């Protein structure tokens, strides 16, 4: 019941503020389960399960892609269709390739192999080897090739097999992708999408567990978005492909198996808009990508403790949606940023300075920012867990912020 109400609130909230508040109060009075295991669904709903994952109680420090165990939710009578996040990305990509023959994919193992995380599975069969181009292992050169193709009329989607590999292509991404529109005096556009699995996975070691947002954010001319649900993954993929700007689409390696029911109808999301995950009154929690799920777990605890946090998935890492963020701050006057990015020079650091510059007068407390630690991501499970922000830290931060 709570789940349904919250989903409704979410849906309405994105349309009108008034309805959102009304539904939110209904939500707060709704019964909340205190036992068992809460699975955070991609839309922020919590569904209770029992005995499925007994390892930990209440908070799930590493909870990510959790399969939907409630058969009722996949009833055929519901509108839309259920997809895993990587399938949603593929669906978005495939629709765009159907719509526009200039859209093509290039990268390592994107074709015959179907992509390391299967985002491009089956596309080479459908569209041919040239539109879904398996490249040699030469990140610098195939990224540059994508840029050259974009300058001459194509709309390539460049996949980094692992986002970290794109560090090898940093020159092309920075100097060409980001700057060529400007240095050419606006004559050439670079409508490429650069995407791939990133973030801290599960014991993948330092090089495969990169937090690249901080590196890319200061490149002029580049937009960055991070997807976090099958719904927004598809919508953002399509929007990124249609954008005339070069867009880096961050996917999180641990979110690919998230399941969600998404609309059958065609939809495209706005690249520059944040997503209201849970409206609230007491504190604004800004997050994105996988940390959204840690925040929602913490939110569960916080609600039990009587707090009413507002959770916003900022989605657009560059530019920030200061409109949505600002409106929230004007309401709550307290801000907590939760990110997986590096503490030094990360998204949180930029977001904090943007908030201070724009909304200082509305703040009742210093902005808090929980980032991952400034260490190369360790291999050992325990160390890795301590590297990224855990729900308990979020709970503690909110308690301190709202004192």
């Amino acid at each position, binding site marked *: 019941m709570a789940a349904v109400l919250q989903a409704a609130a979410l849906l309405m909230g994105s349309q009108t503020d008034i309805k959102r508040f009304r539904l939110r109060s209904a939500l707060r009075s709704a019964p909340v389960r205190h036992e068992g295991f809460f699975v955070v669904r991609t839309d922020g709903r919590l569904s209770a399960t029992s005995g499925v994952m007994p390892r930990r109680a209440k908070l799930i420090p590493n909870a990510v892609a959790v399969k939907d165990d409630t058969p009722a939710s996949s009833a055929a009578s519901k509108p839309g269709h259920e997809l895993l996040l990587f399938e949603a990305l593929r669906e978005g990509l495939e629709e765009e390739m159907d719509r526009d023959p*200039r859209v093509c994919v290039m990268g390592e193992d994107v074709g015959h192999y179907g992509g390391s995380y299967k985002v491009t599975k089956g596309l080479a069969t459908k569209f041919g080897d040239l539109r879904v181009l398996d490249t040699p292992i030469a990140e610098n*050169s195939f990224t*540059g090739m994508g840029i050259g193709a974009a*300058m*001459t009329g194509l709309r390539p989607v460049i996949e980094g097999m692992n986002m970290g590999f794109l560090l090898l292509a940093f020159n092309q991404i920075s*100097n060409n992708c980001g700057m060529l*529109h400007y*240095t*050419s005096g606006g004559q050439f556009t670079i409508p490429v999408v650069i995407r791939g699995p990133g973030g801290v996975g599960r014991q993948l070691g330092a090089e495969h567990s990169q937090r690249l947002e901080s590196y890319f954010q200061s490149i002029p001319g580049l937009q960055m978005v991070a997807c976090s649900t099958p719904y927004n993954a598809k919508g953002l993929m399509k929007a990124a492909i249609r954008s005339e700007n070069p867009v880096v689409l961050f996917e999180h390696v641990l979110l690919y198996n998230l399941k969600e029911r998404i609309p059958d109808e065609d939809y495209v999301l706005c690249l520059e808009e944040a997503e209201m995950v849970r409206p609230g009154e007491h504190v604004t929690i800004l997050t994105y990508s996988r940390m959204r799920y840690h925040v929602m777990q913490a939110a569960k605890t916080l609600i039990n403790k009587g707090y009413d946090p507002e959770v916003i998935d900022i989605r657009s890492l*560059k530019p920030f949606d200061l409109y949505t963020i600002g409106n929230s701050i004007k309401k709550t006057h307290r801000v907590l940023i939760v990110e997986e990015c590096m503490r030094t020079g990360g998204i949180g650091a930029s977001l904090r300075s943007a908030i201070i510059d724009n909304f200082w007068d509305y703040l009742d407390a210093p902005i808090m920012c929980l980032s991952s630690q400034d260490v190369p991501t360790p291999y050992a499970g325990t160390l890795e867990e301590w590297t990224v922000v855990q729900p308990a830290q979020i709970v503690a931060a909110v308690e301190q912020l709202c004192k």
Partner: protein
Amino acid sequence: MSSFSALKILPSHPIAGEYRRHSTPFHAAPASRLLRSSGANYLSSTSSVTAAGRPVRVLSANVVSNEKQIGSALAAITSKEALDLYEDMVLGRSFEDMCAQMYYRGKMFGFVHLYNGQEAVSTGFIRLLTARDTVVSTYRDHVHALSKGVPARAVMAELFGKATGCCRGQGGSMHMFSREHNLIGGFAFIGEGIPVATGAAFSSKYRREVLKENCDDVTIAFFGDGTCNNGQFFECLNMAALWKLPIVFVVENNLWAIGMSHFRATSDPEIWKKGPPFGIPGVHVDGMDVLKVREVAKDAVARARRGDGPTLVECETYRFRGHSLADPDELRNPDEKARYSSRDPIATLKKYVLEHNLVSESELKAIDKKIDELVEEAVEFADSSPAPPRSQLLENVFADPKGFGIGPDGKYRCEDPGFTQGTAQV
């Protein structure tokens, strides 16, 4: 005696002779037309230039100094073409000389790399191209832009940092672009243009095979000897050969990567030989002779246009000035400089066309005069053009200004006049 004084630095290259024995400039399919034109000459010449105990390089200009060969290569040159080549080279030379003047007069700033001495390469290749063909250049790009048809005044105004420049003053000396002329850069870092050129060639193939357009456009990537030790060069040779892309890789080997001699930097200095291992024909040509360059270029471009894939062309050339106008140019041996200035490509062409009665002296003088006036006019235009206004600062950062984000008022911040003042923070 080798014409390369640089060889003196390495008096006994232990394996150079060994290389030569295996050196046949053409490892391409026997059907290659290159083989039948100037290429055959290289083959015969290379076998005759071994001096006793001294590693004579196949790269030598002597290889193609056979008068008979030149005559046959020139049969196809009409006087109209000769005039076009001459005019383009004179334009390149005069333009660059004027750049040096303007730089020293404080009209342009930063790093300015001049093309003097290498004109035969730009002219020999680019004047063969159609408007739809693509050119990718380096930081030494003014003359490539001029050969491709970008007006001198637009290039000069760009160098002056004026709003009327071909990139509105936002690119500068090392970032020349012209969409109209399909000049897609202007790449200031070594090697980064090669993948972009490969992408442009990929586009041509894609248009033909996926979009079913009638497209036989060719891309030419220019770069230097220093770049040939960079990974992007090899990565792109591989990809271009793999997919048979319509591209010509043109190495302007001027022997010096700023102060690094080619022979000190490269284990096997014969760059053209790096094509065949990738399945790409490698060609060496005297880059001081526009007619020889043009012959090779014709074959390479035709091969790309036919869909037969890429060609690697090494043009042996020389820059008559320092690396940039900031380079004191103290390292290069005066004998070496003198030897190459005696092979000035403009003088060589002039001598040839006059000897063969293709054009008259007065026609050439008329071109000289015309170019002088054109360059003067370019300077006047650039000088009198307005500097870019402040409002231009944030234009073109994003093709879609939504990239600048939404302001607190819900409008895109770039619409906010205050946004261009002070910081441009999103």
